[in-house]
């Protein structure tokens, strides 16, 4: 199959691309529907899913209900939890609970962005690499191999240290750039296997036909795998950005859970008995979210690899 496209091909493929965009959307909707069905089958997965949804609702809608407490009350520093303030007060006498409610927005948005970018890059490059083959494929695969062998977090630390991270978008880009190889490999393998099979027909098919096959057949079938990969991307992004915040690398644009932990560390809240709520609240919040994501995805994995299941 030739690796180059003439300008006519490009024009034609754009038209097909527009038509297949609708197909992609339909495919995604179908994938989401299947996702819900799968979730209902597995108990821990379902619980995880509910928790994740709750997190999103609270983090994005909660701030309108419970605005963050900005009032410094010197007399109530590190106050213990009470009915009015379920998580006590922080180092400036501000209500911890409101901070927790408000603290998720940045983190979840960045996580979503990172996962989106990373998934988009991985899927596109993977399909491209498999369809075009040849030098591009070798080059991209080599890149992916190299990126996968570089220790991720130190690189993210160094990058964040060298680059001024001024916005969530830049942070998401940094995180995404290092996490695409996984999905790239999987998509590439799938598309390649199809290409091998239809090799003879591919020679007869137009280049358009192959793109068509990729978007109509392969990707919708991989939707669940892509969904799992998306979820892992999110957990990875949260791990990374929290870590970066804790190192003081990402500017404190507003309150978020990572910032709370960072402040607790610098203000020594970790070592005081009374400030336990303040340090534990964000830690548990992040930990619970990661757990819920893992439950959700592990159960998805089990559904696709029946051998891991016990006897019914």
């Amino acid at each position, binding site marked *: 199959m030739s690796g180059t496209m003439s300008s006519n091909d490009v024009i034609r493929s754009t038209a097909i691309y527009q038509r297949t965009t609708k197909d992609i959307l339909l495919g995604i909707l179908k994938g989401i529907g299947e996702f819900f069905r799968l979730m209902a089958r597995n108990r821990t997965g379902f619980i995880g899913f509910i928790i994740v949804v709750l997190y999103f609702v609270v983090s994005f809608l909660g701030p309108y209900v419970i605005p963050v407490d900005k009032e410094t009350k010197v007399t109530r520093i590190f106050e213990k939890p009470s009915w009015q303030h379920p998580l006590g007060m922080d180092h400036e006498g501000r209500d911890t609970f409101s901070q927790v409610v408000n603290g998720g927005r940045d983190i979840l948005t960045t996580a979503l962005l990172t996962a989106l970018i990373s998934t988009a890059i991985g899927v596109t490059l993977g399909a491209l690499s498999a369809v075009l083959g040849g030098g591009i494929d070798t080059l991209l695969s080599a890149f992916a191999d190299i990126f996968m062998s570089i220790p991720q977090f130190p690189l993210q630390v160094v990058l964040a240290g060298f680059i001024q991270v001024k916005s969530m978008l830049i942070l998401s880009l940094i995180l995404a750039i290092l996490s695409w190889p996984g999905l790239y490999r999987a998509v590439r393998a799938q598309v390649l296997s199809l290409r091998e099979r239809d090799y003879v027909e591919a020679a007869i098919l137009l280049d358009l036909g192959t793109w068509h096959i990729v978007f109509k057949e392969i990707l919708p079938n991989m939707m669940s795998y892509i969904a799992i990969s998306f979820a892992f991307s999110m957990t990875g992004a949260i791990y990374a950005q*929290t870590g970066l915040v804790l190192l003081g690398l990402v500017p404190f644009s507003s309150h978020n859970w990572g910032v709370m932990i960072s402040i607790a560390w610098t203000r020594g809240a970790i070592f005081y*008995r009374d400030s336990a709520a303040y340090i*534990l609240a964000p830690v548990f919040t992040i930990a619970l979210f990661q757990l819920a994501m893992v439950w959700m995805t592990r159960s998805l994995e089990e559904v696709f690899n029946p051998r*891991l299941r016990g006897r019914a």
Partner: protein
Amino acid sequence: MSAIAERDKQLSSSGLDIPRMLRLIWSSYYVRQAAKALFTIFFVTTLIFFLVRLMPSNPVERFVVDLMYSQGLSRQDALDQARAIFAIDLDAPMYVQYIDYLGNLFKGDLGVSLLSRGTPVVEIIKAVLPWTIFSVGTGLMISFTLGILIGTIIAYRRESLIDPVVTGISSFLSAIPGYLQAILIIVFLGVQIKINGKPLVPIHQMRGAYSPGVQPGFTWVFIKDVFFHAALPIATYILTTVGGWTLAMKSSTINTLGEDYVTVARARGLSDGRITTAYVGRNALLPLASQLAINIGFAIGGSTLIETYFVYPGIGSRLGAAVGGRDYPVMQGIFLMITFVVISANLLADLLYSVLDPRIRIGGGAR
């Protein structure tokens, strides 16, 4: 002469057949992997070099400008100082800088620290790297051993109660980020839970690599002390990675148990012990060896924060400090070192894998 006969003659002629020699060398799996590793290291060093120089907010440039303003130096003087610290000549064209940079790397010169003026980065690394390798290495070894033992056991006992419990705990542990687990250990075991007024874990005494007053050396006292101080980081590494090993070994063992050769081994009347070790165990371990590489990179990455929280003087906490103080030469040097260590570890893991699995070893010409 026919083409075959001619080729025959070519091949059997004596003398240096360079292309053939090269092909032979390349066909060795070990050589290929080593070459890949070297190339990755080379790629990373180049990447860092250009990243630093070409960033819009070029830290090197910024440093020079800083010096000029804060100390009123001329650009030339500032450049001279910078050269001493960054070990490169900033005015020369980019490719000359690059060659200098590579040359310095070969000589083992990674520049001089900004924060601790005058201390070569290499010295800093030499002082801290061993502690990280020690703690991460010990942690991974224990975690690996525990993980494969437990994983094998629950793979054999799939209907029992232990399976969902262990699987659940493993999932749990591997989902929570390591640095958070470190904080939880400090908060619960070190601060909150008190027995007779003393905390369960004397975290303050466990700071540092060894207690003041203890002489380094191969004495039992020193070794005990070293382990005492490394206990918390090691425990955290174990907690974060043991879950992954357990689950991986469980699934790998389950897959292996379904293999034909296990059934045939039973038909041959081999003892259960033999089958579990040489047939199931060895084959189930193979996919895990490739996981080893990922785990090493992951653990060293996590060391950054974990060492900071436990105040353990390893390369991770040093990186954290360098980053906080914008000490670029140290940051760069440590990152290169970490990458080198991780990639070397990957290479070793790869070689280990090829020793364990004879199917990998034969490069181009099996039969």
